[in-house]
């Protein structure tokens, strides 16, 4: 089935005219028809627009355009509902943006389209990317394709589930504290968070601006490298994007990791970690060693403070970023007797509980008298967390950890306990605070029920080549990434 191909497999077939962009797009739409009533990865999709893009891609292929010129020509890619696509809905799975349509394309969308991708669909997420399960979506909870009683992770749960369920070839999501890597781990696909500054965020609805980064969900590491090639680079419309050269990341996938030093942080392998996750990750570490990597025990001593730092910094930034949703220029408006009442009523009616909790927490930690005690202190501990990594990277090339402490949990299990939900991101948060790149890839399954387990690799700032090289070498020496859920 065309929809279950990887990007590189599809591209090979398109190049040989064995199939067409229209056929693969139709196959994705058919799969969505067949399974999405149970999975709920998509909030909406525009089938006629997707097919029109496919026909344009087929025309370009027929006129001789090659994948060397346009690497994603004819490849269907779906987007988290947080990225702007001109004239398509953009809702952040929130009631406050229920009727919003984008007036422009995000930079990553421009780049995907320029590379020939068929960009379609709005993928479910936790409202404004705040959550770890998609249960905070104002509309629907996405289900894990491996067990529909369970959540797919979050906040980019729809992006992960859509790839795992073969509803499209790849997706984009955003990662502020693990929102790409955690759902990728729980759904059994690849999820890459690039270095902070690697990919422009222009057209990404901001959650926590010092942490947010856009990245791909794919069926294998090579596809993640292909998409990273396309979406990376300096963009003058995002002043935090960095003018660092963009190498060909697929060229880094040599399969050779002999002599690579990989650090095992002792702070990540302590009580509370699920036994099957521990076993799978330990086996993966042995496999990396067998492939020629040198495993070095390291220490990241401030790890235990990461969740606390994150929930100060991320909520503080969110409280400022979400101030724009005031019922004046776009989105929902609920009238009031005066402007203040209009703002309050609009926001009270438009935001869901988790968004409200985080705005309140963020406002509090920034408020007069508490700023130094909470926000400034958190920024200082953030420095220590970043230094932990930079010191570790003097000794090792990469760090390896579990992506999550447990496999996917059941819907409803943590939805009324914000603190327990926050702790499901415990292994992914430090990466965003430090601004380094991280990838999650499949490294095994739990037995009863069968649920995916994710391996996380963390790299040096702008060290995506080494990161992907190691991930690829591991992946190609195992068969985990070829497993698919029965739908």
């Amino acid at each position, binding site marked *: 089935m065309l929809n279950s191909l990887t990007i590189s497999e599809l591209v090979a077939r398109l190049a040989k005219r064995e199939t067409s962009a229209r056929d693969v797009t139709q196959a994705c739409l058919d799969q969505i028809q067949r399974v999405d009533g149970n999975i709920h990865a998509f909030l909406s999709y525009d089938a006629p627009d997707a097919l029109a893009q496919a026909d344009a891609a087929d025309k370009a292929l027929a006129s001789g355009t090659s994948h060397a010129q346009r690497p994603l020509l004819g490849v269907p890619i779906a987007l988290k509902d947080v990225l702007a696509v001109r004239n398509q809905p953009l809702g952040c799975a929130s009631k406050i943006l229920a009727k919003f349509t984008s007036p422009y394309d995000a930079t990553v969308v421009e780049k995907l389209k320029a590379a020939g991708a068929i960009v379609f669909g709005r993928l479910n997420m936790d409202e404004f990317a705040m959550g770890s399960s998609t249960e905070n979506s104002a509309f629907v909870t996405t289900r894990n394709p491996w067990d529909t009683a369970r959540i797919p992770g979050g906040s980019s749960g729809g992006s992960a589930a859509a790839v795992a369920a073969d509803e499209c070839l790849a997706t984009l999501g955003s990662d502020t504290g693990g929102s790409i890597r955690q759902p990728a781990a729980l759904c059994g696909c690849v999820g890459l968070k690039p270095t902070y500054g690697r990919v422009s965020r222009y057209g990404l609805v901001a959650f926590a601006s010092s942490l947010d980064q856009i990245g791909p969900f794919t069926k294998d590491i090579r596809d993640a490298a292909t998409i990273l090639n396309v979406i990376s680079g300096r963009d003058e419309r995002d002043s935090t994007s960095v003018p660092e050269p963009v190498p060909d990341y697929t060229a880094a996938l040599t399969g050779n990791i002999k002599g690579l030093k990989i650090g095992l942080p002792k702070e990540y392998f302590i009580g509370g970690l699920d036994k099957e996750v521990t076993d799978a990750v330990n086996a993966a570490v042995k496999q990396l060693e067998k492939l020629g990597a040198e495993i070095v025990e390291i220490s990241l001593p401030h790890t*235990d403070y990461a*969740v606390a730092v994150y929930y100060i910094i991320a909520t503080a930034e969110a*409280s400022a970023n979400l101030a724009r949703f005031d019922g004046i220029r776009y989105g929902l408006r609920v009238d009031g007797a005066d402007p203040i009442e209009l703002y309050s009523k609009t926001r*009270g009616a438009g935001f869901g509980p988790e968004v409200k*909790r985080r705005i309140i927490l963020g406002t*509090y930690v920034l408020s007069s008298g508490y700023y130094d005690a909470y926000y400034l202190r958190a920024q200082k501990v953030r420095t220590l967390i970043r230094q932990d990594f930079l010191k570790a990277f003097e000794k090792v090339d990469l760090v390896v950890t579990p992506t999550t402490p447990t496999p996917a949990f059941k819907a409803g299990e943590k939805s009324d306990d914000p603190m327990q939900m926050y702790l499901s991101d*415990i292994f992914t948060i430090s990466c965003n605070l430090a601004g380094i790149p991280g990838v999650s890839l499949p490294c095994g399954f739990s037995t009863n029920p069968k649920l995916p387990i994710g391996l996380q690799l963390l790299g040096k700032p702008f060290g995506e080549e080494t990161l992907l090289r190691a991930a690829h070498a591991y992946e190609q020496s195992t068969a985990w990434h070829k497993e698919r859920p029965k739908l």
Partner: protein
Amino acid sequence: MPFSALHFGDALSTLTSMSDFNVKYVAHLARLSLTPEEEQKFGAQLGQVLGYIEKLKEVDVSQVEPTAHAVPLVNVTRPDVVRPSLPNEDALRNAPLKSNGLFVVPKIVE
């Protein structure tokens, strides 16, 4: 103890909610109307979160500079030249209320 966070259930029982955290006042600062039920629920939940965050007080940060972001750039500027911007109709397309090419807002001055 590293990763005490994973044993958060134990830590929670020893925490009391923050006495000076007034959810109603902070919600007003954030221009967020809450129902009485939300006030009560969020107050309790955020009291727990704030209790957890207290652990940062253990860290000696007296000699540490704050990190605002991890990007190796400062003072990014561009030439100050006029460029096309979003067309008026695109800027207004999502407005809850508009008239004559403008956003309509509630009366601010009597």
